[in-house]
């Protein structure tokens, strides 16, 4: 009965406790054991994933007209800035708790250079420039479903914030793309990203997010698209050792070797490392420490040089999910709120980092986390105090 009714849902009617099935042609295709299969994932693109760039034709505009368009764009920008200023943007922050999730930011990987620690050690850091991030929209958990549809059940209880970065000329974008920004009044941005936030972490549209969202000493996760390396062999792709160059080895210097055993395992096991396409996929590097922040250019110095993507690539930066590297002290929640009268230094350093404008005085024993180690006792002096 239930099978029938579900199959012919549209054509069944319940009247006075009786079932009337309207005459329809109903073709049944039996799929055995179908209840054991996973539901077929249905890819549903998020609403903001529309065609972004317009095809630029020669519009044969007169110079006056093209100037007029520029003027309109300029006016729009001024107007939106004014509106956002007038708008009551979040004024007071909420006390942070460990279970709360903040938004992340869109950043640009701008290069790699070394920093030195006070114990004389050299570390390699990657510089991430936080672009002019602004909140575009909030999607509640009901509105934003994960891509695989499961009716009646929302796995992800967190809503998501759509954040845009790098203001651009709106005439370059399609109408659909510009419509995403229409409600908010923010000028269209080049890059969009969504960040899951807990209910308390919702930010009103138009809220700017700067590098001060993060604090030195805390860890972040960075997600980006790795460099495309094309089709690669096992030595480059999986770090296999290859085989000797001589000693009778013929034609198998860089090959993977055996890929399966005999007997019951006489097949290639799924997941066997083999040659194939390498790179051009998203990768998240977790638990990178922030060593330094430049508040003028909104730059974060994070440890390591393995951040995915080439220089000038766009990455997204999140608070880390690694439980042991989550912050212990309270952090600004939902984000750092800029106050016009506040005065903060241009560079904020982690307490372990050597500042270039200071010089070494002597080595002293320092106690951190109950372990003793030598650090540079250093003082700021005038030029060339030799």
């Amino acid at each position, binding site marked *: 009965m239930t099978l029938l009714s579900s199959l012919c849902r549209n054509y069944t009617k319940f009247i006075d406790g009786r079932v009337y099935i309207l005459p329809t042609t109903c073709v049944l295709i039996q799929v055995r054991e179908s209840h054991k299969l996973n539901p077929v994932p249905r890819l549903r693109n998020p609403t903001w994933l529309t065609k972004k760039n317009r095809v630029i034709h020669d519009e044969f505009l007169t110079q006056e007209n093209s100037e007029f368009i520029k003027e309109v764009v300029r006016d729009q920008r001024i107007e939106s800035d004014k509106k956002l200023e007038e708008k009551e943007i979040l004024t007071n922050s909420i006390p942070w708790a460990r279970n709360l999730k903040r938004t992340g930011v869109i950043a640009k990987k701008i290069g790699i250079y070394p920093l030195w620690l006070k114990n004389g050690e050299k570390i390699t850091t990657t510089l991430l420039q936080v672009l002019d991030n602004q909140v575009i929209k909030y999607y509640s958990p009901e509105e934003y479903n994960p891509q695989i549809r499961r009716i009646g059940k929302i796995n992800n209880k967190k809503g998501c914030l759509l954040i845009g970065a790098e203001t651009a000329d709106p005439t370059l974008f399609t109408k659909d793309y510009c419509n995403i920004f229409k409600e908010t009044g923010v000028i269209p941005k080049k890059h969009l990203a969504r960040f899951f936030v807990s209910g308390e972490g919702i930010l009103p549209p138009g809220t700017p997010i700067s590098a001060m969202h993060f604090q030195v000493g805390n860890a972040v996760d960075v997600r980006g698209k790795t460099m495309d390396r094309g089709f690669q062999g096992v030595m480059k792709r999986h770090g296999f050792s290859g085989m000797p160059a001589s000693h009778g080895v013929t034609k198998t210097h860089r090959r993977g070797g055996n890929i399966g055993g005999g007997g019951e395992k006489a097949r290639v096991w799924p997941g066997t490392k083999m040659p194939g396409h390498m790179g051009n996929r998203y990768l998240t590097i977790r638990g990178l420490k922030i060593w330094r922040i430049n508040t003028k250019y909104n730059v974060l110095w994070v440890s390591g040089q393995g951040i995915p993507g080439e220089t000038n690539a766009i990455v997204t930066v999140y608070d880390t999910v690694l439980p042991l590297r989550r912050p212990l002290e309270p952090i600004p929640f939902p984000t750092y709120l800029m106050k016009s009268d506040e005065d903060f230094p241009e560079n904020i350093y982690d307490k372990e980092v050597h500042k270039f404008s200071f010089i070494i005085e002597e080595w002293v024993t320092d106690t951190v986390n109950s372990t003793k180690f030598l650090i540079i006792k*250093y003082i700021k002096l005038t030029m060339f105090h030799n």
Partner: protein
Amino acid sequence: MINIISKYSLSLSTLTRTTNASKLLTNRTKTTAASNIVKKHKQDDNSKNALAEYRLIYPEFLPDPRIDFRNSVREKLERMDMISRRSQIDIPEFYVGCILAVTTSDKHNPAKNHRFVGICIQRSGCGLRANFLLRNVIDNQGVEVLYEMYDPTIIRIEVLRLEKRLDDELLYLRDAPQEYSTFDPNMEIEPHMEGAPVPINTIKVKLKPRPWLERWERKNLKGVEDLGLPERFYKRAGELATPWEKYDLMKQYMKTVPEEEQNQIFAEIQSELQNIEITRKKLKRKRTFLKPSKLA
């Protein structure tokens, strides 16, 4: 027409490169044919020339010319850090071939400082990664130490003898007899007149017989005596040589930072660099005043 050519050759010579080969090339062109033109232009535009000289004195301020590594914000921040380090410690003007003394502080021996004297045989890296390689022979053993220029554990860098050699890298000293890279650790600073041109030491090194660490006959070395190899070595070197590359303008362009950008970079830090130079001169005078009392 002649004017255009001469102008062009000048722009080529000023279009300096961080690459050593072209640096040498520019030096040579300056001293020879282009010298007259350069002099004329010097009178015309002094400040521009001052900027052009910075690229030889402070080569590490020029970024890596590879376009996929460039980012203006990163370069600016890096320069700011370099300047703030340079305002605390005197990193003097030096070239490959100079004899330097570097004093570092050692974490494992906090009571003492470590001083190493040697000839600079290589300079590489740019930005905060700039480094130089010093070589000396200590107890009949060749020793090389690689120093990072902006390492905070460096306490003092002294130039004991300021001079240039005929080559951009003196790595061939590793295959030369020890006397060519032996220097007295207690060597005194040799005086150098302020503003005088840096002397070029035209010494020709006689290498030891093969085997060598590298095939020096293929490196087109200037500061080396005849290598005394069989003809086939030179023949092979000739086959592998790429003499046309110096005419490859595109390659030159890709390997170098454009002149306009160089001027922009040095104009930005000019005032800071000048301040540092003034402080250095003041300190120099102080030291020279103190010394005679000790001698007497």
